C-alpha cells in the first residue's frame, strides 16, 4: 500500500524523523487554517500518488494568505496524470541550502536491505542512477545485524554530504531505518532530504510504501487503507478479498492462481485481444468465490466477453464445475462466458457444465482455444 505524502510524513513523525510543521486539507478554508497555524510563507502541495506533480503545477509557494487561497483553489480538484487531487498538504516553507536523497528498500537479488544516499537529491533517483551512478552511495544491510551507527556514519561520509549535514543526516538515517524495519515498509524514501542555511537536516517529502502482509501487526494502518487510491472495480474486488488488478481491455479474466491468471491475460493478448483485468480467485473455486468474481467483472462496463480459466488441482473438476453452475444461478451475466476447465477430473467437471452450455456459455478444452473464442466474442459484440 502506497501512502500519500501527508501520511508518509505522519508515519515518519512516529519515528522521530523531523518534518516541516504542516497539515492536510480537503477544502480551501481548511488549507488557510493550516497555513495560519504553521505560519507564512507556506508550500501548497497536491496529494497524489504519481510522480511529476511539481511540473504539473501541483506544488506552489505561497508567501501570504491571498496566494495560499489562490493556489489551494487551483490545486484542489486538479487532474494530475489521471489522478484527481482530493487533498493538499500545507506546510511552512523551508529555506533550502542543499537537497539530498535517502531511501531504504529490499534488495531482492542480494536478499539484504539496501540503503541509498546521494548528495544529488531533488530529482528522480532513477535519473541519477542512470546519468551519474557514482553520485549514489549504497549500503547493504544484513537484517540480522541491522544498521549500526558506525556503518551509517561511514556511509554518510562516502556520500559526500556537506560536513555540517553529517550529524543531522546520521540521526535521520538511523530513524528512517527503524521506520523502514519496525514500520514494515517496502520502501521508505526521503527526496529531498534538505539541509537548511541554519544547518538543520529534515525531510521535505515522504514516499512510503507499506508491506500489506504485515498489516496484522499495525492496527494504525487502518486509517491509511481508508484513503487508498483504488478504482471502483479494485475497491469492490478488495471488499470481496479477491486479487484483482484493473487493465484496459475487453476480455474479463478469472483464473485460479496468480501465475495462471497472469498467463491467461498473456494468452488473450497473444491471440489478438486485450485483457480487462487480472483476477486470481485462489486455489479452490467455490460458488461463493466464483459469484464474487463474476460480480466484480460485471461492474466493468468495458467487458465484452469473460474467460474463466480453471485448473483443478486439489480442488477437483466436479467441485469447480458445481461451484460455477451455482454461481451462474446467483448472478446475471452481462457478457458471454468462455470456460476452460482442466486438470484433476476435468472430464467429470465438463460433464456437469454441459447442460448449461449455450451460445452465452461456451466450454473449450484448452487455454488457447478458449482465449481465441473469448477474443472473437469480445470483438463481435
Amino acid at each position: 500500500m502506497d501512502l500519500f505524502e501527508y501520511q508518509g510524513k505522519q508515519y515518519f513523525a512516529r519515528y522521530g524523523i523531523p518534518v516541516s510543521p504542516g497539515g492536510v486539507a480537503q477544502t480551501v478554508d481548511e488549507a488557510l487554517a493550516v497555513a495560519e497555524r504553521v505560519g507564512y510563507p507556506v508550500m501548497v502541495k497536491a496529494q497524489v500518488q504519481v510522480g511529476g506533480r511539481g511540473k504539473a503545477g501541483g506544488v506552489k509557494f505561497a508567501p501570504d494568505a491571498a496566494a495560499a487561497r489562490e493556489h489551494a483553489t487551483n490545486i484542489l480538484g486538479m487532474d494530475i496524470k489521471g489522478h484527481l487531487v482530493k487533498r493538499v498538504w500545507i506546510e511552512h516553507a523551508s529555506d533550502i541550502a542543499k537537497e539530498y536523497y535517502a531511501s531504504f528498500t529490499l534488495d531482492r537479488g542480494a536478499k539484504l536491505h539496501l540503503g541509498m544516499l546521494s548528495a544529488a537529491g531533488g530529482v528522480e533517483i532513477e535519473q541519477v542512477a542512470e546519468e551519474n551512478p557514482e553520485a549514489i552511495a549504497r549500503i547493504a544491510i544484513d537484517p540480522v545485524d541491522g544498521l549500526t551507527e558506525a556503518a551509517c556514519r561511514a556511509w554518510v561520509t562516502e556520500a559526500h554530504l556537506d560536513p555540517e549535514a553529517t550529524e543531522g543526516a546520521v540521526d535521520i538515517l538511523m530513524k528512517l531505518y527503524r521506520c523502514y524495519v519496525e514500520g514494515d515498509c517496502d520502501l521508505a524514501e526521503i527526496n529531498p532530504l534538505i539541509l537548511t542555511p541554519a544547518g538543520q537536516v529534515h525531510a521535505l517529502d515522504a514516499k512510503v510504501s507499506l508491506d500489506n502482509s504485515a498489516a496484522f501487526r499495525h492496527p494504525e494502518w487502518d486509517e491509511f487503507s481508508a484513503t487508498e487510491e483504488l478504482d471502483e472495480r479494485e475497491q469492490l474486488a478488495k471488499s470481496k478479498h479477491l486479487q484483482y488488478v484493473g487493465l484496459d481491455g475487453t476480455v474479463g479474466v478469472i483464473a485460479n492462481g496468480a501465475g495462471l491468471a497472469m498467463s491467461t491475460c498473456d494468452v488473450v493478448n497473444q491471440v489478438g485481444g486485450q485483457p480487462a483485468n487480472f483476477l486470481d480467485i485462489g486455489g479452490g473455486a467455490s460458488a461463493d468465490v466464483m459469484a464474487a468474481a463474476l460480480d466484480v467483472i460485471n461492474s466493468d462496463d468495458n467487458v465484452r466477453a469473460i474467460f474463466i480459466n480453471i485448473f483443478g488441482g486439489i480442488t477437483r473438476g466436479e467441485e469447480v464445475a458445481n461451484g460455477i453452475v451455482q454461481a451462474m444461478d446467483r448472478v446475471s451475466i452481462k457478457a458471454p462466458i468462455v470456460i476452460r476447465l482442466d486438470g484433476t477430473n476435468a472430464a467429470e467437471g465438463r460433464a456437469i457444465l454441459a447442460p448449461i452450455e449455450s451460445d452465452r456459455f461456451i466450454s473449450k478444452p484448452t487455454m488457447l482455444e478458449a482465449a481465441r473464442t473469448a477474443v472473437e466474442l469480445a470483438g463481435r459484440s
Partner: protein
Amino acid sequence: MSIFVDQRTKVVIQGLSPSSQGFFHGMRNKEYGTNVVAGTNPKRGGTEIEGVPVFATVKEAVEATGADAAFTSVPPRFAADAIIEAAEARVPFIVCISEGIPAQDEARTYNVLRREHPGVRLLGPNCPGIISPGKCNIGITAGEIALPPIPGQPAVGIVSRSGTLTYQALFELKQKGIGVSTCVGIGGDPVPGTNFIDCLEAFEADPDTRAVIMIGEIGGAEEEKAADFIKAKMTKPVVAYIAGVTAPPGKKMGHAGAIISGSKGTAQAKMEALSAAGVRVGLNPTEAGELMADVVKSLA
C-alpha cells in the same frame, strides 16, 4: 533419482492438529506415500493423530523419528518462528507453503538460515512444495497430475515460481506421457529460500533428470541470473515459460514478488535473456509443453 526428496525422506509436519492446514495437506501427502513420521504441536505432545505421533517440539520429533524434512503451513505470523525452530532442530530440508509472511520477517529468516544454519535448505515460503512423483510429495500438489519417471525413457525436472502453472506443466507432461523426476515450486515471494539456480544445479547433477522446464514470472532478476547459469554451467536442455507479458508496471500481480519496478523485471527482458542463453522459450504453457515433448523425443 530425484532432487532434494525421495522415498527415504522422513517428514515432520509442523503445527499438527485435527483442523489445521498441516493436517489436511500432511495427510494427503501421507496418502500419496510420503513417509510422514511425525507432527508437532506444543499442546499435543505425546498424542497421536491418524497414526502420526505428535511431539511438542521439532527437536523432540527429530530425536525420536530421525525426520529429515519439515513441512510448515502455519499462519504467516508464526511462519518465521516455525522455520527457525526446524532449522535449530537440524532439519536439513524445510518446506514452507505459508502465504503472506511480512517481507521483513522473510529477509531476516533467510539471513539467519544463511549465517547460522548453512546446511539447511528452505523451500518457499508461499510455494506449492515439492513432489518427486511416485516417491515423495511435500506440499499441496495434487499427486495424481504428476507422472513418475518411466523406466528407459528420459525424465524431466520442473522448477517454477507459480503454483497453478506448476500443476499446468505437470499436467501437460503427463498428457504427453513424459515422466517427471522432481517438480519444485520455489514460490512467488520476493525472498525465496531456494532459487532457480539451486534447482537447476541439482537437476544438472541428477543423472535421471535429462531436461528441465523452468517457469518464471515478472519481477526481480532471478530468471536473468538463471539464464547466465544455464549458459555457463548447464549441459541439459532447458525449456522456459515466463508469465506476465501483459502485466502493468507497479502493480503486484497476486504474488508479492510479481511486480515490475520501473522498467525492471519485465517478462520480455527475461525471455530475451533466456533465449540468448540457448533456452527454448514457449509463449504459453502449452507451447512450453510441446517444446519439451520435442526435446524429450530427441533425447530418447
